């Protein structure tokens, strides 16, 4: 699903949530090659010109999420929790920590020991000197309703990250496959959903057919 289509669905759901309607949603998508620049993004962290990107079939989007520049593409599970945090903990820090924990728990199930690094958002593998980012996090809040979310590299072709300085950090990126765990993205999604529910104290329920149909 294209980045802009996914964004439209998020915004529609978020608008409902802001009005106090609907329920919280967790959307899973996979995007075609796209580079997005967050609200705090710096163009110098984009290393290729728009023409070069266009020639490589990579779209470019300016986005209102937090964070700097990031890349999305095939083999990457992108998750968008659209939640009203007023009905949860009303706590931005706890929200990000819970997302991180969801990823850490999920990766642990696949034998990958991932962790947080103080002051850096995202989820990392390896010791401090060789830390590589396996999942990126960038969230936008409007009236306590969240949009955007995280991107977990499963079998992502990491060469596309050469076009950017991910999140403005000069640290390498990695994927589950690169960590020696070439897994099926569909299976990872259910594991993610399971730990998301556990960490957020949610009950898992499949989305209404209308929405899932859209997301295929």
């Amino acid at each position, binding site marked *: 699903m294209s980045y802009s289509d996914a964004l439209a669905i998020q915004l529609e759901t978020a608008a409902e949530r802001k009005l106090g309607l609907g329920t919280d949603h967790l959307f899973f998508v996979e995007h075609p090659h796209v580079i997005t620049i967050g*609200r705090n993004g710096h163009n110098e962290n984009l290393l290729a010109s728009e023409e070069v990107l266009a020639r490589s079939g990579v779209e470019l989007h300016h986005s209102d999420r937090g964070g700097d520049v990031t890349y999305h593409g095939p083999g990457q599970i992108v998750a968008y929790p659209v939640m009203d945090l007023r009905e949860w903990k*009303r706590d931005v*820090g706890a929200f990000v920590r819970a997302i991180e924990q969801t990823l850490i728990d999920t990766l642990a199930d696949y034998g990958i020991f991932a962790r947080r690094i103080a002051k850096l958002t995202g989820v990392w593998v390896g010791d401090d000197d060789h830390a590589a980012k396996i999942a990126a996090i960038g969230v936008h809040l409007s009236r306590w309703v969240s949009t955007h979310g995280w991107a977990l590299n499963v079998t992502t072709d990491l060469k596309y990250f050469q076009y950017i300085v991910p999140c403005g950090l000069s640290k390498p990126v990695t994927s589950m496959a690169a960590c020696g765990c070439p897994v099926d993205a569909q299976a990872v999604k259910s594991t993610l959903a399971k730990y998301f529910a556990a*960490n957020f104290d949610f009950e898992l329920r499949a989305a209404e057919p209308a929405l899932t149909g859209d997301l295929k």
Partner: protein
Amino acid sequence: MTDVVMPQMGESIVEGTLTKWLKKPGDAVERDEPLFEISTDKVDTEIPSPASGVLSEVLAQEGATVQVNSVVARISDGAAAPAPAAPVAAPAPAPVVVEAPPPAPVAPPPPPPAPVMEAALEPEGPLSPLVRKIARENNVDLGKVAGTGAGGRITKEDVLAYVASASAPAPVATPVYAAPAPIAAPAPVAAPAGPIPGAAAPTAKTRIEKMSTMRSKIAEHMVHSMNTSVHVTTVHKVDMTKVAKMRAKHKDAFAAQYGMSLTFLPFVARATVEALRQFPIFNASIEGPNIIFHNEINLGIAVALENGLIVPVISAADEKNVVGLQKSIVDLAARARARQLKPNEVQGGTFSITNFGSFGSIFATPIINQPQVAILGVGAVEKLPVIIDDAIAIRSVAHLALTFDHRLIDGALADQFTQKVKQILENWSEEVL
């Protein structure tokens, strides 16, 4: 006039970065309309305006780090009095931390009312028309100007010097009304809440800060425990050399396999669990006239947080080996620091361990975590010269401090319990791992 404050975005969040103003000074805003954006921890949040009116003052620039509850802007309701040009100390306790240049001159406020003080405040004695003119143009209260001319008369130089000295400290957009506050009105600085910058207020000798919720709860628990249990602490010296060797041997393999380091704590926890099995009274609580023996061993592990502490619980600790205990400790500590513990993970403890040794303490006298009846404090493991069979040897030594509730447990029993822990640690064998 409505203050716009940096909102509370979460328990652990004390500040954020103001990333973008969505309105400019002078713009009209509607209540609830997005006014500015802040970034905390990679989360960008639009903050809606708390009131309708005109954005009259912006006190924090884009890129500035702003403390929670500090005033970042003021919204006037249009017809209200003009905004004071000189920044007045915000009433909120937390100061606005501005990393960017200081607040830029605010868009000119509606012109203040024309000065009306000439007649009323004129000093006695003759004044030259020139002096009057300069005073009027500069909005100077001549009653405040000291005259140096003949018979105390105010001269042109006196007025100009006064204007020059008065206008210096208060930069204002419109020069005509330069620094009206200090000159024109004798007591115009009405902000009663905060100190006025530049005023010769005496430096405060104290600072008042409300305790965090966590701090208040800790205080309550500590007092409650001291009022409930009769605390006695007994300290035993333990030779940790065998455990140290065991740990050194498995450290690298453990780190490679589990991605975390192997510390002394899970060994002590394991030994404690064994001792608790043999001395169930230490795994009990008191309820009225009854002793409640707990059949499960749920081990509380004290975790120091930035501004407090919490004691998450390893449930069924007796079913775990050293590896399992280490994993639980690391996991609980990490989630405690990330404030991700679930309520059931801090409840139901039957005995606690506190590892002050990790901060270098040799021994301390811990306070019992109610309704438990004992707590084991683990001191630092250090290499010491020890006499064994009249020879001096270098051994790894730690002090174990057991605080017990003397209502239920007597000293002899407490020492037997601690000796049991000591014995297991000193005779560690591979099987226990």
